[in-house]
């Protein structure tokens, strides 16, 4: 029921991602304004105004920077975030219906590690470098549970193709009988997009970390890449756990969008509820709790499948 789109799908995908990313950023700004007691209407316009501001802002240079890698990092992040969504179906259309779709998604999000590290390292600045270090440490903490979750889903469907995974959920969504995997997936999406509460790599305590030296268009591309990565992660939760485009009344592409928006809203909202989780504390939880939990979930799913 999932089929590959014609060439226009390639053009449509970035547009859909951009709209969702902008919606998420707007929602986030509104939540921020509510707690600050500010003007909600002005807050809703804030993300677009930020874009305008970054377009006209001077690009900074730092001394002895590795300019190519530093400026390239944002582009790599943005491209990887868009490419990760290549295999995510919108209803019945996917831009690429690869036989190893899940692996493709995983590979693209790991490109983000390189991107954030390069952004931190390339600028030749201590705080930015610390931000880069932090993301690598974060990767060590969240990536293994994340991969076990993806494995669990693949075992459940008996395939790495996203279309097959959606088809396998026709009777029962995976979220129902893999709840642990679903929760760990959402946590790891926040961590991979270094989004609150896992925003330590761009933390305010080190002047914005990997973002510390970026300004103007470089900053815009990097920040946009981060939001799109969050959207890509949230969108993938729909075919993996929430039955893809299936649902009553509405066409399936609309269901995909509604579910993605709902996951995205939950992620943005939940991220604001807790302080920033530092990796010196989280790594222990990730390895001692999340890895065993996801392994048990994988075992349970394997037994059911057999």
């Amino acid at each position: 029921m999932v089929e590959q789109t014609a060439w226009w799908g390639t053009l449509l995908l970035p547009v859909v991602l951009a709209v969702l990313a902008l919606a998420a950023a707007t929602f986030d700004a509104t939540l921020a304004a509510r707690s600050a007691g500010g003007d909600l209407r002005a807050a809703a316009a804030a993300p677009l105004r930020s874009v305008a501001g970054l377009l006209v802002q001077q690009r900074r240079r730092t001394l002895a920077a590795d300019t190519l890698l530093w400026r390239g990092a944002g582009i790599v992040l943005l491209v990887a975030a868009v490419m990760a969504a290549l295999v995510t179906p919108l209803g019945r259309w996917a831009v690429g219906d690869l036989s190893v779709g899940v692996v493709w998604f995983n590979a693209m999000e790991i490109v983000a590690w390189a991107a954030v590290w390069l952004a931190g390292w390339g600028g030749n600045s201590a705080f930015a470098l610390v931000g880069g270090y932090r993301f690598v440490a974060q990767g060590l903490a969240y990536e293994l549970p994340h991969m076990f979750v993806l494995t669990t889903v693949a075992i459940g469907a008996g395939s790495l193709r996203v279309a097959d995974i959606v088809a396998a959920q026709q009777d029962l969504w995976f979220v129902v009988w893999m709840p642990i995997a679903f929760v760990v997936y959402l946590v790891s999406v926040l961590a991979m997009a270094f989004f609150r509460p896992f925003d330590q790599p761009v933390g305010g305590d080190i002047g914005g970390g990997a973002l510390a030296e970026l300004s103007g268009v470089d900053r815009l591309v990097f920040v946009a890449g981060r939001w799109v990565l969050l959207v890509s992660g949230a969108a993938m939760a729909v075919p993996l756990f929430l039955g893809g485009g299936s649902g009553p009344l509405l066409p399936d592409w609309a269901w995909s969008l509604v579910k993605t928006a709902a996951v995205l809203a939950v992620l943005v909202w939940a991220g604001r509820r807790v302080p920033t989780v530092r990796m010196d504390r989280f790594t222990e939880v990730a390895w001692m709790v999340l890895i065993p939990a996801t392994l048990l979930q994988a075992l349970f799913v394997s037994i059911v499948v057999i």
Partner: protein
Amino acid sequence: MDLSARLLRLTPPRPLVVGAPGGTAARLAVERAVRERGWQPAMSPAEANILVVAGLAGHTLEACVRQVWNLVPAPRARVDVVGREDVARLLDTALRVLGDVDQQRAEATRPPDADTGHVEAESHHDVTPDEHHGDHGHHGHDMGGMDMPGSVPMADRADDRDGLTLDQLHVPLGPVLPLWPAGLIVHTRLQGDVVQHVTVERLGAGGGSFWRPPGDDGPDVHRAVARWLDSSARLLALAGWTDQSVVAMRLRDEALTGAPAAALRRPLHRWAGRVRRSRTLRWLLAGIGSTPDDPTTPALLAGDALTRLRRWLDSTENALEQPPAPLAVPGMRETQWTMDALPELLAGVELAAARLVVASLDPDLDVLSRHEAHHG
């Protein structure tokens, strides 16, 4: 109207607020105005477009501020707020400068101030002038002809806490750093993100503390409450809990405008309850910056960051009770002790934890007398 002008008009103001010694009143007024206008404060010069100096910058601080100013990309404006008055007018002026195409075009092409020179890569925001001259030959580097392009010296190496030989960077924290005590400079030697060694320096005093006005018989309730809320807000912001930090700031500003205790009590309880109940916060702050358990440690600073935050919450709530509990506001003794203890407390901790340690002790350097300028 051309495109640049239109984009400039849309540019959201991002103020980077620099607290000068003795500038607490100005800082509070600026932070309040910024929040009420819905502006997002900047965390770094790269993100900022308005540089706000709160208080009177002395000679040394002014040199640092100039270096930071050179790091702020155009469009940009600088504002010096000396007192509590006039904040609105000054920020409006900054906004006008920000939207002025001709002035910003000139700003974008202006070379950095000749007397401040370029900024070394290791220590962007917070360079102190005595460490910073054209030849970059200071801070113990002995790297003869091995300079990289741009005359940045190679980093030193030394054993780290695990016995590995790693690069070490000299990174000063402060005096221009958001959510940092005004006038404090902590010179760190970093390996990765671990602080290996620390020396503490203090910028010249700015004439008395806002929180402890001289010659008064006891601190007044509203100011004491505002002090605790200010400290909590800064600690929560550094802990990454922006929403609750902003609530604390709102309460602080209300307390400073003299809102009646009865009006403050309810929102305060709600906020304090939420902060106290957060299991994540407990898990993240426990064990950070534990002060030694001996009689020389001031009672107000005993325990770890979590204990101190809770003490602020309790003090705030108790102060508004009827009858109010006696106020124990930190003063000279606490600040002096903190300055002396920081090198030991910060050695071997990660940068994130180091910032939490300083914020949880929140020394008010303005209470110290003019004479003791150097420590550590």
